[in-house]
């Protein structure tokens, strides 16, 4: 597709429920990032993939958060046993290898997760 596609756009989860958020990056984009954006805040880094390899997961807030990109294209961010503090917009961004910070990453529109 022409852009980064994220689904679902909105997700309401009951506290304790597991959720899976999907990101379809631009075809051929090697680098893929997940960011968490709380209401009224800037995006905060969660994790980074280069192809299928997860090279940096230092931003994942707890072991309830898990991300994968098994074939180097589509990525899934999974949150187990959701808590209210997990409510945020989850953004996915992709770029060609090595040039993202120069030419900018292409962000998806995000998934807004609300935990009730």
């Amino acid at each position, binding site marked *: 597709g022409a852009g980064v596609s994220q689904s679902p756009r909105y997700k309401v989860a009951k506290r304790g429920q597991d959720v899976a958020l999907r990101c379809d990056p631009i075809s051929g984009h090697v*680098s893929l990032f997940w960011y968490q954006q709380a209401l009224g805040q*800037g*995006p*905060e880094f969660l994790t*980074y993939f280069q192809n299928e390899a997860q090279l940096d997961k230092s931003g994942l807030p707890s072991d309830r958060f898990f991300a994968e990109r098994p074939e180097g294209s589509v990525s899934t961010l999974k949150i187990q046993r959701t808590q209210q503090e997990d409510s945020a917009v989850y953004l996915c961004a992709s770029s060609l290898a090595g040039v993202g*910070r120069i030419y*900018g*990453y292409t*962000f998806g529109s995000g998934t807004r997760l609300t935990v009730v």
Partner: protein
Amino acid sequence: QQQVKQSPQSLIVQKGGISIINCAYENTAFDYFPWYQQFPGKGPALLIAIRPDVSEKKEGRFTISFNKSAKQFSLHIMDSQPGDSATYFCAASKPGGYQKVTFGTGTKLQVIP
């Protein structure tokens, strides 16, 4: 730990006026400073960026001013238009590694006719 501090949190400017957003950073390892623009319901998009060896960069109505010694940089939007109404994030990144971007907290700009 807020690595990139941004102010003001919100800004109202009249059409045709100048919008100014300020940012400061602590980590001298940062060597690339982009600004992102985000419209409601959309992801951020790169607007303009600067390296610290340049004191100013201009692209159309958007100008970044950079003060390396003070570790501060700012975005100026000249002749602000209602279509500029959005949230603006300053950001910073380090060389090498995975090139992740560290964002500021954002400034919500409203340009009124």
